[in-house]
């Protein structure tokens, strides 16, 4: 276990492994996304109450789910970077922030577009939507905070603290539809008990959730690789890879 953690902290090892991983994961992700989107858009039946507008669910729910899970990844990396001062954890945290911000923004925008034909409005200050907006600001806050500091060690520490404090928001988002019953519908998929969604609609949704998780992983890995090539531009191991390619 410790050897794996130790290896993960080693940039040359990570660079090699992530390169192989991305080369496989990127085409798989694109394939999953295309299949899931076509399935959801063209094959799945329409909802009996919402008609075809519900098809937005196949991007809205996956992006929101992964935006929440991604926050835990970022906060966990922030904690590791704070406690053990591992540089790779700091790189992971900063790589996850813009990806999470994009996914949160997608969840908000697709939610607004879905809201128009369903609720008759683009936006309401509903508990779920407002807490998602706070999530977007937390992600953007981490990105902006890092840029604001001259001293990058202090910047990484401040970002880690902000991301840890922000974790309070995640259970609030998750539970908001049950605590404040308003326009946003409660969860249709449950880990325990039966889901309130038919299999013909559920399978493409699960496929898209898997696809978005893969996409999150690919985007974070690519961000980390881009950051590492800059941080280690003077290092011998990287120069060897570059001249060997």
């Amino acid at each position, binding site marked *: 276990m410790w050897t794996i953690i130790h290896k993960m902290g080693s940039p040359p090892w990570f660079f090699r492994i992530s390169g192989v991983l991305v080369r496989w994961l990127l085409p798989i992700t694109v394939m999953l996304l295309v299949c899931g989107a076509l399935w959801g858009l063209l*094959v799945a039946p329409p909802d009996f109450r919402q008609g075809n*507008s519900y098809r937005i669910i196949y991007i809205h729910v996956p992006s929101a789910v992964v935006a929440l899970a991604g926050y835990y990844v970022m906060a966990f990396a922030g904690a590791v970077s704070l406690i053990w001062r591992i540089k790779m954890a700091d790189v992971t945290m900063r790589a996850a922030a813009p990806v999470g911000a994009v996914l949160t923004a*997608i969840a908000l925008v697709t939610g607004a577009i879905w809201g128009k034909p369903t609720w008759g409005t683009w936006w309401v200050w509903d508990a779920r939507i407002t807490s998602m907006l706070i999530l977007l600001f937390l992600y953007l806050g981490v990105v902006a905070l890092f840029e604001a500091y001259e001293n990058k060690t202090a910047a990484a520490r401040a970002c880690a603290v902000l991301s840890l404090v922000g974790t309070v928001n995640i259970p609030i988002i998750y539970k908001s539809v049950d605590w404040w019953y308003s326009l946003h519908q409660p969860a249709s998929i449950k880990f325990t008990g039966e889901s309130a969604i038919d299999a013909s609609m559920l399978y493409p949704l699960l496929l898209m959730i898997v696809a978005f998780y893969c996409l999150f992983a690919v*985007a974070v890995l690519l961000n980390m690789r881009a950051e590492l090539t800059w941080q280690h531009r003077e290092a011998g191991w990287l120069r060897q890879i570059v001249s060997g390619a």
Partner: protein
Amino acid sequence: MYFESLAAAWYMDGHGFYVWLAYALTAIPLCFMVWLPLKRMRQHWRWIQAEQRRQAAATATEAGI
């Protein structure tokens, strides 16, 4: 396919505008999310290559070649 024709899939009983707009506004940022770090990495890669050429040229001059 659920729809009878591509035109029906495009129109989606009046919801087509919302559905396709949502998918378009998702696809565009997702493409950027993958393309931007790739572009950044390529720039760093080129910077390192240029630096290597500079250093090689410098050692060559020092050696009096």
